[in-house]
């Protein structure tokens, strides 16, 4: 593309900025973004794309890590793009302007490689929207020699089948080493002038890459070759990104994020992240403290969040927080934790860790109302833990609480629903009696319910989702079971959860369904006010499918599952046994605190749990309630729920 063309594209797009909401979403130029044009020795042009608006994706950690890898790889030029919001999309389509990158306003179609992260199932139609807006063929089979290779990755890629037609390749597992290998292969082959087919063949040879075109497309049939998940075994020594791009506008994570550990072995049976990111690997206290101080100094941000699936499980969390709080004590800089388990923490640390932002609300996720059902899902907490956590938090100054529950979990009965209400009331009463009489009016409890979505690679992968009518009945029951009138009840749109379920365990027939729904106008499905069930229903009808049946589909334990060809390291026998144990309410322990429970990951993937210190010194055997601090901006709760247990 000539410089002139580029400039006219840039000025045409900038002409639209006065007509859209939040134009700064589209203007880039942030600190640490690479604004240089590609130079002669940068052979491979890579565009990293997040399938939602900048406000959501601008701080996405996957993109932060991959961007950093590109910057460190000689010969690679990297830029970023995000899906514009509907107002901008309409204007771009009207003016016939393609989706461009932020850095140099280059059309996505002019890149060699487009990397798209798949953060959750509900991004499916957004992915089509962005590829189409870029003017690239939606189906991999229709792309030619001059088109970019479109490669996906992220948690949702673990069930590749619904996305098989769209992506040329999917990367399974930790991206750090794998993405660097992908870049290396493509650099070399581009230099050698190889064809698209040859490039795909070479990528297929990398462990962790699934080439969609190479798989037989008969649904539910085990392809000959399994794709094995990649694990970054030496996570402890992999450098944390300390110069992430610093967005000008507020994004989902408006803070420095330092990943202090990867994986979670609590073993909640509904949680895909807990199963897929095994084994648990920790960064040392020293590495964490260094990453925080370096990152804050470089970015000038006023908050650092110690992120992971369960940050308070870190074996050195107490010394880490103590050191950081001492360091930033008299400043305007805050240290926060996205998820905590107060039981593991004790009152002193709750005071320290929470002291900086008590104005927000604490989120507890008991997930189920009854002890029986919590045992079914392996959420090892009891009522005493919850009361203890609330009392501790009240003493530390917290006044606002959010409680997360799921409706429609396997084996759930009406009694379990009623016990959700009882537990919420108990939390409210506990909080009210734990604070001085004058402050009782400040107590706020919000109850948030989502419909259970069975996920691939979990012990509940064989279970169907509850039908919509029954979900509605149970939600009505919940509403009329005597919830304290000061408790605010919210629930996530069950229809959105149904679509999530249809995709999460979908086979290859789901690709055309997503495509049809998108053609009928579905996009931004994770945004409740944008979601259109009509589009999805019509799409299903057009293809002779039933959403209720797809979401509710049950598999026999010995059936071949559409995602069986993805080797997550988990032994299928382990998952089946976990499922059976769940039915009898038998709990399974956490392998970072007790014996290995033989999930299969360590042996299968030749890796190991790696802790910075022993976790046994924290009194944890009873499990505990988990909490989130510093709730993030997000379209709907469900998006991050899977990782917030």
């Amino acid at each position: 593309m000539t410089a002139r063309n580029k400039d006219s594209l840039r000025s045409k797009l900038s002409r639209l900025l006065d007509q859209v909401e939040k134009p700064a979403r589209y203007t880039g130029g942030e600190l640490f973004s690479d604004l240089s044009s590609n130079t002669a020795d940068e052979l491979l042009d890579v565009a990293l794309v997040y399938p939602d608006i900048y406000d959501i994706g601008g701080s996405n950690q996957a993109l932060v890590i991959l961007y950093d890898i590109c910057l460190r790889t000689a010969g690679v030029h990297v830029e970023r793009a995000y899906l514009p919001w509907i107002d901008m999309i309409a204007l771009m389509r009207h003016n016939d302007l393609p989706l461009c990158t932020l850095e140099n306003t280059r059309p996505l179609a002019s890149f060699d490689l487009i990397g798209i992260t798949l953060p959750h199932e509900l991004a499916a139609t957004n992915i089509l929207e962005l590829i189409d807006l870029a003017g690239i063929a939606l189906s991999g089979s229709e792309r030619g020699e001059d088109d970019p290779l479109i490669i996906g990755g992220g948690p949702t890629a673990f069930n590749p089948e619904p996305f098989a037609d769209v992506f040329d390749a999917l990367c399974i597992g930790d991206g750090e080493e794998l993405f660097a290998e992908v870049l290396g292969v493509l650099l070399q082959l581009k230099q050698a002038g190889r064809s698209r087919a040859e490039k795909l063949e070479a990528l297929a040879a990398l462990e962790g890459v699934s080439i969609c075109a190479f798989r037989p497309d008969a649904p539910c049939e085990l392809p000959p070759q399994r794709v094995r998940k990649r694990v970054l075994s030496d996570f402890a020594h992999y450098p944390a990104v300390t110069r992430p791009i610093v967005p000008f506008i507020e994004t989902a994570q408006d803070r420095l994020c330092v990943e202090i550990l990867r994986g979670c072995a609590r073993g909640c049976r509904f949680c895909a992240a807990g199963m897929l990111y095994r084994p648990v690997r920790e960064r040392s206290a020293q590495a964490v403290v260094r990453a925080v101080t370096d990152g804050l100094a470089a970015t000038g941000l006023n908050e650092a969040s110690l992120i992971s699936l369960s940050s308070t499980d870190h074996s050195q969390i107490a010394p880490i927080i103590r050191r950081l709080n001492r360091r930033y004590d008299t400043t305007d800089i805050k240290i926060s934790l996205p998820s905590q388990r107060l039981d593991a923490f004790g009152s002193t640390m709750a005071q320290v860790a929470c002291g900086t932002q008590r104005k927000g609300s604490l989120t507890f996720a008991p997930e189920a109302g009854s002890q029986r059902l919590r045992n079914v899902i392996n959420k090892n907490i009891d009522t005493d833990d919850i009361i203890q956590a609330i009392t501790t938090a009240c003493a530390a100054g917290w006044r606002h609480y959010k409680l997360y529950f799921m409706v429609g979990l396997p084996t759930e009965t009406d009694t379990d629903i009623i016990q959700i209400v009882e537990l919420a009331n108990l939390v409210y009463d506990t909080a009210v009696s734990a604070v001085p009489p004058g402050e009782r009016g400040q107590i706020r409890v919000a109850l948030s319910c989502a419909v259970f979505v069975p996920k691939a690679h979990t012990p509940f992968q064989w279970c169907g989702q509850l039908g919509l009518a029954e979900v509605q009945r149970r939600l009505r029951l919940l509403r009329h079971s005597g919830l304290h009138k000061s408790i605010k009840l919210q629930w996530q749109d069950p229809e959105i959860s149904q679509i999530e379920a249809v995709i999460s365990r979908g086979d290859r027939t789901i690709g055309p369904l997503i495509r049809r729904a998108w053609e009928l106008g579905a996009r931004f499905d994770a945004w409740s006010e944008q979601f259109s069930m009509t589009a999805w229903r019509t799409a299903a009808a057009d293809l002779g499918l039933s959403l209720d049946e797809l979401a509710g589909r049950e598999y026999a334990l010995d059936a071949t599952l559409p995602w069986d060809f993805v080797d997550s390291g988990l032994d299928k026998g382990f998952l089946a046994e976990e499922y059976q144990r769940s039915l009898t309410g038998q709990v399974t322990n956490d392998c970072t605190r007790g014996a290995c429970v033989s999930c299969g990951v360590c042996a299968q993937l030749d890796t190991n749990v790696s802790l910075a210190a022993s976790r046994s010194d924290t009194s944890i055997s009873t499990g505990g309630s988990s909490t989130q601090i510093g709730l993030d901006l997000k379209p709907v709760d469900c998006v991050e729920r899977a990782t917030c247990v």
Partner: protein
Amino acid sequence: MSEFRLRINFQKLGACRYLSHLDLARAMERCVRRAALPYAVSQGFSAHMKHSFSAALPVGTGSLDEYMDVELARYVPRTAVLLALREAAAPGLPVLDAVYVDHKQPALAVSHIQASYEVLLYDPAGVQTTALMQRLERAVDVEVVKKGKPKSYKLDEYVYRNRTRLLKTDSAGLTHLALVLRLTPNGSLRPEVLLKALALPDLDMEIREVTRVSLTIDDSNDVSNNTSTSVAGSKGHRNIDGSGGRSNAARRKGRDNCCRSNDSKKDSI
């Protein structure tokens, strides 16, 4: 504890003109933190940096002359401060200068400010602009709808009319208009709001870009009598930083030098 008030002069260039005032404030706070200045922190429930800004710019308006006051807990020589800030500045928000100002000086937000703007109008034939200039000269007041309610503004209170100038028409067919407005703590008119109101109902002009060129404190309290044409140094005016100040030409030069993303990226998206 004694504090030192540092007045930072910076710019809002290129794509950064689309930042909201809040975004801009956050970005400048981060710049101060990156520069590792010993800034003072408010005491209380949630500690924050003590600072204030010159009159908020609307989204879409760039500036060659913005100010941020920040309180330092400790004195650091000005040259060191300036060096650190310049190095820490985000692309698009270059720091031009930083000086210590007396606490007795009025705070940025409560002063009467003379703000010069350069407005780019797309008007290839030049007809619209001529008509607009005439209205600007003759109109007594304009009516602007604010939050659904019409409000009338007396031009003599808000516009330094004698200082309105047609600067040039460039090769792209853009007319450059210089407009000087008065910002008061009680209210002010935005250039594009004023021009749009004057254009009603028959003039059809497209405002392509608005840039604030300079800010000066105006103690004269009288717009209509003010016939000065120089931005700095005339009677009744003084530069915001109290120093000799720099000319607009120098500011423009600063813009070209300070930031690689400017200029070529002025229209970037």
